[in-house]
């Protein structure tokens, strides 16, 4: 998500804050893709990510008066997107939320290690879906997507130390869940 290389001028940000729809559209056009990508990384469901991108920009429009035009737009948008994604994750039932099929259907940057059995991967994905959403969000962004801890912390509204702690707790719970299923990682 662009932070410093924004094409949108500060005039547009001021107009957006005043409720100008053209300025809002300009911001939407510039930030739609990174916001969608951020949400997709969290929810791992393309259809839901599209809906949540719409929801996020609706929330952004509603909260425009709280936006400070002297600050960058992208981190603010990312934080609102994160809240929307967490709300969605909390509303899902774990057993239907993240299946191996859904994980496999995502546009992937790598093909993965063929040495790991598909069954273990499936059980790991399902065990991960059973973790609390706040732990899952931190772990998927930090471990799988390798996003900077500072960005994750800002998006979740917590400290970098808290992000690391959540990742550790997520991995520990995941290991425990897999061990209960008879899998020794």
């Amino acid at each position: 998500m662009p932070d410093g290389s924004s094409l949108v001028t500060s005039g547009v940000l001021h107009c957006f804050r005043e409720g100008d729809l053209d300025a809002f559209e300009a911001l939407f056009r510039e930030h739609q893709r990174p916001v969608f990508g951020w949400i997709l990384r969290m929810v791992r469901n393309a259809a839901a990510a599209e809906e949540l991108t719409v929801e996020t920009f609706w929330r952004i429009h509603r909260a425009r008066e709280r936006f400070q035009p002297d600050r960058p737009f992208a981190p603010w948008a990312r934080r609102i997107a994160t809240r929307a994604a967490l709300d969605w994750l909390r509303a899902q039932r774990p057993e239907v939320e993240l299946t191996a099929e859904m994980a496999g259907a995502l546009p992937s940057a790598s093909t993965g290690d063929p040495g790991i059995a598909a069954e273990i991967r499936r059980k790991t994905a399902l065990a991960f879906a059973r973790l609390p959403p706040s732990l899952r969000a931190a772990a998927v962004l930090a471990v799988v997507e390798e996003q900077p801890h500072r960005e994750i912390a800002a998006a979740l509204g917590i400290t970098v130390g808290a992000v690391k702690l959540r990742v550790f707790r997520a991995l520990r719970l995941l290991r425990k869940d897999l061990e209960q299923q008879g899998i020794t990682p």
Partner: protein
Amino acid sequence: MNAHDEDRMKELLKEALPPVAADAEPERDLWPAVLRRLDEDAGAPRRATFQSVPWFDWALLGGLAVFTVSFPATIPVFLYYL
């Protein structure tokens, strides 16, 4: 869980959940959907606020308050007719 276990779990998680491609984007233009959502929001009934109550309702309430303070004996009569 030691550092080795932690690294192993990270590796397993990466294998189970492949990372999203950097160029992932929506399959359709979402701007029309955002506009529809804004229109729905504009058409929805708004929650009553201090400003949304007409001034004459506040005047009536104020007058009633002054009247009942001036003539407390009328309070039971008002309560009876409520």
